[in-house]
């Protein structure tokens, strides 16, 4: 149990997704309980055993043999995900000191602390694949590994904190819920934990927007402006369209990824339409409409050229985010050194005593 801050699954926005997280958790237990019958033995044909485990929807664990490309793909994906959580603390951290009330401030602090936690669960999952934490931190700081482009957009008003919770965390949840069923055990388990906590994030964002949208005309306009700015970048979070996605097919075969970028994007749009209606805010897409034939909404695609530009480092805040991360790392060096020196001193004392 994760405390009692979660309402039952059918209650309110994101509820259905929380139910899916629980289903994934149950499936993980069920698959673990189900004995694999027959098939190649783990010590005979490594590749055949690996394929058989994946095929049986069971989990690959850290000490199992795995293809080198599977290991590399997972390290890249989990590390980028971890970096995103850490960099993602910045746009919201920007508003902690200016939150409109003590309650909002306490909630935002807890949320940003959760993001740090998510980053750490994920770094720990990546480390089980044989890469060290130091290497991962270096890769981010040197700019050799990426983080999600969404965090390169600025948070200009308090309403942006709401829009990030509703749209950015909402898109992240749609992306991440299927990862709870990923074939790599430590990643799947970390994602179950992350998704349960993200659900609080999405709801707090939705509540901020709902409050603003039902406040003064100025507050409502501020909420609408935030939604206008965050809508398309949120759609771009699902990555390039399926035709241009380079990693998808192999990741699907390995059951790292379960749905294509476009499928998930569609799902997100379909969810948001009704939620926007209840907010009383407009999704900034004049061509958004229900398509009876497809049983889904038609919508305008985000600007993928802009996405590519932001990925390349030319978004509004890329430099600022990286500078801040580097500064935080170097400013914290003395703390790490002091803690290490203290630990060494204590070890020496023990040796002398012994």
């Amino acid at each position, binding site marked *: 149990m994760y405390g009692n801050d979660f309402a039952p699954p059918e209650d309110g926005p994101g509820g259905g997704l929380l139910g899916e997280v629980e289903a994934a958790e149950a499936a993980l237990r069920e698959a673990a309980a189900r004995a694999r019958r027959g098939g190649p033995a783990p010590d005979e044909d490594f590749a055949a055993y690996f394929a058989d485990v994946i095929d049986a929807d069971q989990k690959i664990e850290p000490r199992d043999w795995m293809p080198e490309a599977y290991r590399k793909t997972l390290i890249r994906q989990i590390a980028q995900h971890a970096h995103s959580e850490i960099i993602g603390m910045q746009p919201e951290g920007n508003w902690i000191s200016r939150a409109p009330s003590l309650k909002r401030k306490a909630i935002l602090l807890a949320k940003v602390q959760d993001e740090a936690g998510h980053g750490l669960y994920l770094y720990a999952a990546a480390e089980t694949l044989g890469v060290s934490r130091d290497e991962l931190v270096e890769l981010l700081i040197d700019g050799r590994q990426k983080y999600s482009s969404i965090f390169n957009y600025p948070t200009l008003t308090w309403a942006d904190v709401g829009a990030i919770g509703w749209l950015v965390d909402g898109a992240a949840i749609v992306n991440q819920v299927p990862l709870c069923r990923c074939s790599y055990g430590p990643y799947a388990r970390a994602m179950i934990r992350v998704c349960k906590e993200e659900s609080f994030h999405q709801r707090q964002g939705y509540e901020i927007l709902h409050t603003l949208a039902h406040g003064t005309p100025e507050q409502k306009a501020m909420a609408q402006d935030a939604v206008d700015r965050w809508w398309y970048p949120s759609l771009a979070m699902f990555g390039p369209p399926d035709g241009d996605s380079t990693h998808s097919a192999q990741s699907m075969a390995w059951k790292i990824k379960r749905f294509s970028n476009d499928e998930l994007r569609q799902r997100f749009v379909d969810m948001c339409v009704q939620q926007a209606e209840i907010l009383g805010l407009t999704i900034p897409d004049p061509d958004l409409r229900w398509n009876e034939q497809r049983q889904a909404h038609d919508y305008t695609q985000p600007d993928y050229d802009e996405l590519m530009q932001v990925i390349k480092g030319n978004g509004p805040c890329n430099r600022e985010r990286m500078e801040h991360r580097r500064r935080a790392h170097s400013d914290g060096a003395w703390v790490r050194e002091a803690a290490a020196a203290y*630990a060494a001193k204590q070890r020496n004392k023990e040796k002398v005593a012994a």
Partner: protein
Amino acid sequence: MSTDHSPLWEVFVRARRGLSHTHVGSLHAPDAELALRNARDLYTRRQEGVSIWVVPASAITASSPDEKDAFFDPAADKVYRHPTFYEVPDGVAHL
């Protein structure tokens, strides 16, 4: 935060009284005391536990799943260790 100065710790949490400690994940810390504090902040932000153990990851000796069959073989042919192995005559109570 070099890995030498801040080694890896495995974290075990007892969710409630009456349950055993369960592995929840890992973290880096320079010593046991900080590992405990970090574990509290990282793994029990929502009252997930009433007790935490931290163990240096380097102190754990693991059997590898790769050796699964050979290592656990001795148990496979001893079905008589399970109560279901035995035939119970009709009418026997409290057995």
